[in-house]
């Protein structure tokens, strides 16, 4: 029985399963008030998915507004928040769009497909702006490395990210792999995509032009993922969707590759008036958003949708989250050309609707009207909540529990043992077990990729203009102080971008938190958002887009507040990038910035003592900005051979990573006035290690002095230390004067063995 509009008018008291679909009673009442009758079952399906937390941002909206309100003035922003992804001007007529999104819950249920479709979804967001995708990144978070469920989830997620991205032909240029107890029942899979286009190719999701046609193209619509993203992402796991349909989407990267090529061809041929990807909430979302952004009216013949499963009901077709589909608005004159380009790429396409000026979104099913709604009420005027929030009762006690009394290594021997232990800690160990499953070479424009600070790709092969991106977040810092923690995430990401020599331009974010219905979690969210917005204003780089993922918790225990921040930078010639590996003998190693006794939330406190408490490292965004200017100038003027930011694991980790990447040893020392342990393992922000050729030393140090950035000479690259230290002459060692010596071979073994030891089967 089809529930028609007429039926809804006639039988207006018919009880409806709004609660099972995740709507609250007052939300249901509001739908009735909007329509002046009860919704049909198809309308209820549309409203319920579109008003879900995942699609409507109902709990986060009031906080996210700050990103617009506090946005710094910049000419770089071509398209701001609100579109599928923001667009940034990088010069020479090039524009870049980038965005990060979460696929946490689906990846827990089915790791491979969940992660794969996460990549697929974010890539479609980027192509729907008219951009050609350039690269992907994958910030990932798991429970403890040795937990059995991590061994179930991690290999599948990594294979899924790789399986999809590799098959699409997009290089993976970076990401994160972080382990913490709180992610055990709730791993985080965030996926980022970046794309480029010429300014004139920017496209927006709107249905303009009465009489224009709505074309659905790509994969056929099936029953997979019905209630998937929405049910899974909005409510906790025990509320599963309609029983007869699986709530897992399966990705087809091959189809997506064809979809990319077909889409770019029709866009460049000027055949498209508006375009929208189909992600969460499928056709409901695409049609209501397109209509709501356009002339405000659209009619859809739902029975024309090509199906994979003929038994699907209209409600299910509206809600289906089948992957690899797109929706385009095409003029009648261009339709044939559009369809022909789709055929060239073996992509099926069909006209499902028409733009009109009715101000309504109407949907027919075999001649009967099943939906008749004002599209804005579906797409943009969903509920908005001012969720209550308050500082957690335990926050003061957490901050009072400082790491100051934790036992510290006392002599050189103990420092050496600590170093070997730390470089093998799951969070600091080499991630190459993961990254070697990702293609970083495809497209031939990857200039920097893992394990560098940022991923950097060439955008213009003629001029060498390129971009760099990094994503970062230390959730422990955010737990200790969400406001500062979000700014520290921003600062780290910023630092990683400037370390490569790129100038930061814009920010994306993926805010992963527990339940917004918990006022203490909501406080974390509010504080982190405020911190990030204030930080972006201070650094002068706008937030161009992002994603919120709530309900990341196991029972009542929320994950660490995890505001993942992605910073995008531009470099006018990638030839001038600064890599992380130091150069030949004799080059000088400098530490820029101040080192303080800051261990709260540090990897040392976490890994060695299992401790979390105190106040996170001091944030000084003016200092970060100055550090950035020095690093960019150093790259531009050829003063630096190498640079590497200091973050998790402190200066020790930074030096070890530089040495291992280059394969050459170094003699280092502790600058005056700092305790060796604090120097090596403290995690003060605003620092980087740089390597300067002797010929540039004076110029570089004078620049730092003039700009008042502390610069300490802490070492010199030296391949000939082996014999002095009692090893074979050729042995490469890292020597800390007066403290200890360690060989690169030992460090490499400790650094590289951790992940394979657990994950290699």
């Amino acid at each position, binding site marked *: 029985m089809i529930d028609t509009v007429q039926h809804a008018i006639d039988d207006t008291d018919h009880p409806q399963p709004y609660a099972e679909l995740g709507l609250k009673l007052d939300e249901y009442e509001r739908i009735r008030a909007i329509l002046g009758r009860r919704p049909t079952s198809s309308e209820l399906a549309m409203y319920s998915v579109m008003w879900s937390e995942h699609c409507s941002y109902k709990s986060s909206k009031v906080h996210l507004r700050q990103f617009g309100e506090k946005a710094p003035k910049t000419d770089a922003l071509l398209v701001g928040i609100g579109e599928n992804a923001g667009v940034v001007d990088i010069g020479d007529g090039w524009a870049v769009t980038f965005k990060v999104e979460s696929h946490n819950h689906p990846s827990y249920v089915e790791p491979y497909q969940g992660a794969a479709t996460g990549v697929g979804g974010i890539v479609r967001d980027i192509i729907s702006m008219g951009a050609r995708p350039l690269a992907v990144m994958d910030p990932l978070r798991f429970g403890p490395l040795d937990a059995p469920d991590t061994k179930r989830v991690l290999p599948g997620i990594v294979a899924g990210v790789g399986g999809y991205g590799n098959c699409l032909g997009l290089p993976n240029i970076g990401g994160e792999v972080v382990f913490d107890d709180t992610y055990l029942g709730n791993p985080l899979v965030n996926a980022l995509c970046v794309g480029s286009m010429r300014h004139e190719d920017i496209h927006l999701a709107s249905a303009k032009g009465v009489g224009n046609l709505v074309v659905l193209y790509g994969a056929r619509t099936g029953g997979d993922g019905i209630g998937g993203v929405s049910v899974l992402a909005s409510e906790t796991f025990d509320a599963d969707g309609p029983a007869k349909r*699986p709530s897992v989407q399966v990705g087809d990267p091959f189809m997506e590759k064809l979809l990319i090529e077909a889409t770019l061809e029709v866009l460049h041929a000027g055949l498209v008036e508006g375009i929208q990807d189909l992600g969460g909430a499928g056709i409901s979302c695409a049609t209501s958003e397109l209509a709501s952004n356009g002339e405000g009216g659209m009619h859809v013949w739902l029975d024309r949708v090509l199906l994979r499963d003929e038994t699907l009901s209209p409600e299910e077709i509206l809600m289906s989250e089948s992957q690899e589909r797109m929706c385009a608005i095409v003029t009648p004159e261009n339709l044939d050309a559009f369809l022909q380009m789709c055929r060239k790429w073996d992509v099926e396409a069909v006209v499902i609707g028409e733009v009109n000026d009715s101000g309504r979104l109407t949907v027919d099913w075999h001649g009967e009207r099943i939906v008749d709604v004002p599209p804005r009420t579906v797409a943009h005027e969903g509920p908005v909540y001012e969720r209550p929030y308050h500082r957690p009762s335990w926050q003061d006690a957490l901050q009072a529990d400082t790491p100051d009394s934790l036992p510290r290594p006392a002599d050189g021997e103990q420092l050496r043992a600590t170093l070997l232990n730390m470089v093998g800690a799951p969070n600091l160990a080499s991630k190459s077990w993961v990254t070697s499953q990702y293609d970083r070479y495809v497209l031939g424009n990857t200039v920097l990729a893992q394990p560098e600070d940022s991923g950097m790709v060439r955008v213009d092969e003629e001029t060498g203009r390129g971009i760099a991106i990094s994503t970062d977040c230390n959730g422990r810092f955010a737990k200790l102080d969400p406001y500062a923690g979000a700014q520290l995430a921003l600062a780290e990401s910023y630092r990683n971008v400037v370390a490569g020599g790129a100038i930061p331009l814009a920010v994306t974010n993926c805010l992963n938190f527990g339940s917004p219905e918990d006022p203490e979690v909501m406080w974390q969210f509010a504080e982190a958002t405020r911190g990030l917005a204030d930080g972006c204003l201070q650094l002068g780089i706008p937030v161009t887009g992002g994603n919120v993922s709530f309900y990341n918790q196991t029972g009542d225990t929320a994950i660490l507040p995890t505001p993942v921040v992605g910073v995008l930078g531009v470099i006018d010639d990638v030839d001038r990038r600064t890599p992380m590996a130091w150069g030949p003998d004799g080059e000088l190693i400098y530490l820029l910035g101040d080192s303080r006794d800051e261990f709260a939330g540090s990897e040392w406190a976490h890994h060695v003592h299992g401790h979390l408490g105190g106040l996170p490292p001091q944030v000084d965004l003016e200092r970060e900005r100055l550090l950035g200017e020095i690093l960019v100038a150093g790259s531009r003027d050829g003063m630096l051979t190498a640079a590497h930011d200091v973050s998790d694991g402190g200066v020790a980790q930074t030096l070890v990573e530089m040495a291992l990447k280059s394969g050459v040893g170094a003699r280092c020392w502790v600058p005056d006035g700092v305790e060796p342990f604090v120097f090596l393992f403290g995690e003060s922000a605003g620092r980087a290690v740089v390597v300067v050729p002797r010929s540039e030393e004076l110029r570089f140090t004078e620049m730092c002095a003039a700009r008042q950035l502390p610069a300490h000479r802490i070492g010199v690259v030296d391949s000939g230390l082996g014999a002095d230290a009692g090893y074979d002459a050729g042995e490469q060692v890292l020597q800390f004067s007066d403290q200890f010596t360690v060989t690169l071979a030992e460090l490499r073994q400790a650094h590289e063995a951790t992940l394979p030891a657990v994950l290699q089967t």
Partner: protein
Amino acid sequence: MARVIVDVMLKPEILDPQGRAVQGALGRLGLDGVKDVRQGKQFIVDIDGDLEGDRLALMEKLAGELLSNPVIEDFTMRVEA
């Protein structure tokens, strides 16, 4: 000595891109009227002794949890002596 044969197929409602690719190829190569193709896996497990009682139950459990992924796949298992 027993031989266990486990056939694993994607559940009918789950998208099978491999099957679709094969369907397209069969058509292009001149085979008309192909309505549907599904691609699955087959495992042939040779095992010592008789497979009975607990061991049979364990094999069955592993067929459903290790050899197939219950979230997206169905399996059938048969034992040949």
